[in-house]
């Protein structure tokens, strides 16, 4: 089951590059958007990560950091990031494979990839919104923005 609103977001530490690790708790005091996705290199233009890349300024207006997570390795992420000119970190849920995806309840055991799932985590580290998308459907960003906006109204 996907972790739902109100739960404390499980902390993790994953590689963003071969020699740099990122911890969720490092972002305390900032909103965080976690976007789990199946794999780098999906063949469409304007794929989910490319789309979020174009929308970063809307996220930063809400003091939110975008983070992508898949089971691809850091080397694969690096190449993908360069190719698509992505300006946010992609984390490698690579070893032990899928551990963080499992902790958030969004790992697909059959194919061995993360499901397509979104989490908005508030400044105290609590899940403010989560959404599991059908794997074939890129969920866009309207849900993320609605969640960030309702955090501000609190």
């Amino acid at each position, binding site marked *: 089951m996907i972790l739902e609103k109100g739960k404390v977001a499980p902390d993790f530490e994953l590689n963003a590059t071969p020699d740099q690790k990122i911890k969720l708790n490092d972002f305390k005091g900032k909103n965080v958007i976690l976007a789990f996705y199946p794999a780098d290199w999906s063949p469409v*233009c*304007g*794929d989910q990560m490319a789309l979020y890349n*174009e929308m970063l300024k809307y996220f930063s207006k809400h003091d939110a950091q975008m983070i992508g997570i898949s089971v691809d390795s850091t080397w694969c992420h690096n190449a993908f990031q360069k190719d*698509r000119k992505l300006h946010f970190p992609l984390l490698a849920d690579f070893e032990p494979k899928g551990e963080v995806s499992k902790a958030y309840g969004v790992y697909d055991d059959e194919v061995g990839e993360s499901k397509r799932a979104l989490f908005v985590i508030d400044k105290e580290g609590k899940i403010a919104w989560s959404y599991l998308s059908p794997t074939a459907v890129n969920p*866009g960003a309207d849900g993320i*923005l609605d969640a960030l906006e309702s955090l501000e109204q609190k």
Partner: protein
Amino acid sequence: MSTLKPAIGSSDHSEGSDSAAITIVEFGDYQCPHCAHAYPIIKEIQQAFGDQIRFVFRHFPLQESHAFAFQAALAAEAAALQGKFWEMHEAIYDNQYRLNDELFQELAETIGLDIEQFDEDINTEAVKQKVEDDFESGVRSGVNGTPSFYVNETKFDGGPEDLFEMLKENAE
């Protein structure tokens, strides 16, 4: 289900009758090959359904992926100020294979714009703001790639061929 935000208004570019039963909104990018693929299919839809269809285009340029997409959207908006949005829209898709920075001026000449005025308008804050407003409306409306279509303000999950099929089935 995602819906169109904001609703269609006077700043939108539309073709067809305002009283048409069906309004199709496309969020598109002038450098996106899938949008270029959709372009003749939209024309077919318009021909097949005539005044039953109103077609609205909003800009969704993916600037990081497509180097000329934003500039192309500005060119269309600058042309719109001279009443020639659709002429520029069509000229850009017809010439997508040779997009470059100089192309827009050439197209402006081809479609008979006042070039001095065009050059001035394309650099104004208002024209830039229009394109950015369109983009933001796409973000708000749940656009998840280009092209994204909305039928009577509700997101349509499918490509242009699916859209054509759906309209044909509905008409039967």
